[in-house]
């Protein structure tokens, strides 16, 4: 196992202590890569030493049921599986989320304005245009990582994470966007708010959305 950054061609495999490992293939953060990640997750989660295979944004975390004594064969199996990975097409549904942008609902929209040089209206127009695909869930119960944000509104994560953001916060972190499912801390820039319940532990599955589902943001109001 090496920690050096490998060439653009080879996937990178790094350790998360003895709890798991992270598999990061090269290439764009797009739907093609993500569909192969979904395929890989389905394969790997059936392997004996794996407790859970967790898709991220064009990467995959493996959590060990027990840490393997030797990692070499697991790494080789992983690389071999990736090389034959196909695009897994998940047929999802589309959910529209009404959003109030700016003001107290989007306390960091000014930072996005400052970083991008765009006006609030332009940012909202660009943010509401695409049909976003749920690439993965993570962060907190029911939270969806979305693919498809226009890189023009990409804004770096905050230098210090903000504590106590409300649920329903629509935010931008780097080249990604998402909606928080409950109140908590975040390092992303909050630009708006939506009212929607994304998680219920009594439901099976407990989440409203699954990888492959789609989200469209609709601007309900812009506060300046």
């Amino acid at each position, binding site marked *: 196992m090496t920690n050096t950054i490998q060439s653009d061609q080879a996937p990178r495999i790094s*350790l998360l202590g*003895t*709890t*798991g490992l992270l598999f990061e293939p090269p290439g764009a953060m797009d739907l093609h890569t993500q569909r192969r990640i979904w395929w890989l997750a389905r394969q790997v989660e059936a392997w004996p030493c794996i407790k859970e295979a967790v898709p991220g944004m064009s990467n995959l975390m493996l959590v060990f049921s027990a*840490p393997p004594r030797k990692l070499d064969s697991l790494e080789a199996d992983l690389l071999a599986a990736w090389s034959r990975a196909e695009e897994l097409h998940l047929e999802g549904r589309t959910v529209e989320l009404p959003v109030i942008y700016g003001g107290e609902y989007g306390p960091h929209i000014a930072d996005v304005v400052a970083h991008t040089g765009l006006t609030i209206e332009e940012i909202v127009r660009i943010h509401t245009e695409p049909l976003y695909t749920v690439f993965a869930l993570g962060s907190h119960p029911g939270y969806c990582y979305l693919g498809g944000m226009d890189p023009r509104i990409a804004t770096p994560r905050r230098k210090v994470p903000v504590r106590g953001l409300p649920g329903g916060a629509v935010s931008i972190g780097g080249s990604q966007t998402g909606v928080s499912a409950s109140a908590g801390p975040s390092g992303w820039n909050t630009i708006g708010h939506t009212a929607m319940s994304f998680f219920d532990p009594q439901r099976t599955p407990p989440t409203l959305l699954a990888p492959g589902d789609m989200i469209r943001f609709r601007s309900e109001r812009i506060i300046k």
Partner: protein
Amino acid sequence: MIEILSATALSSVQDLGRDGYLRYGVGTSGAMDRVALAAGNILLDNPENSAAIEIPFFPFEVRFLEDIVFALTGADAAAELDGRPVPPWWTLPARKDQVLRLNPTERGARCYLGLAGGIDVPVVLGSRSTQLRGEFGGYCGRNLRQGDVLRTVQPAERSEGSERLPAAGFGVEPPEFALPQGDPESIAQGTRTFVRVLPAAEYDCYEEASLESFWSKDWKITMQSDRYGYRLEGEALVPKHTLEQRSHGIVPGVIQVPPSGQPIIQLRDAQPSGGYPKIGTVIEADLWRLGQAELCTQLRFVQTTYDEAVSALDTVRDYLNKVRRLAGLYRLSRR
């Protein structure tokens, strides 16, 4: 049944944690010191994964509403049962209406109060641990409050357990003495905790000088540290170039470095994913040491290898097996 008498904040019901729901965004939760939780359950003859109360702030008081055997593990909270001292890492029968008081800790950060049978709260998504962010699991999905009454699982089997227990109870050697890590002076003073770390994906992206201070300098556990994570303070870690990662899964123990350069160790209530660069991961076998590291004390990171980190898990397992053998002997001697 027990009743929480004090209003001290942030106590919660925890078991070993919630597995298999990371893909839904549900983190593991569970005891910050899983060795203490498991050992407490072994002392009580409970399954290792039974739920107990994790107590991080003191004083803390409970009243026993029935005769029941309890166990205290984790931090040494100078406990008193109706004013009589109870040693740390000890199990003892309590009588109805007795009051157990835990005082500000002399050593360690979190105390675990377990009950014979284990605390009975609903199992949600495979665990009794409190999921604070999701507001489910544990006791009503929240921290404990004054007046809360907690029941135990399997009340019928309890009397048998208490008959098999010596009246004065019995105890075991705490893991900080059985499995010491670091220099003896720091261990004795409890002011510096040594934890072993495996380098993570972005380790090589940091300046040589930063890596040197990462391993050789003290890192203060700031007041902004809790079950979500420990925010550390020390010489800022400087990357060779700007790093922005795609969101990916993380686990308790991962040491993230936000742009401020001050690292954050993600812990049991942490998000199961993140995007900050990762310089290393505190190995699973040492996470319990973090759980007992007090606010405003110092941390030292000790570099280790994967093989050593895997063996370290065996060492923890050996310790718990020793506790199990000892507990068995005490019970046998009563038969």
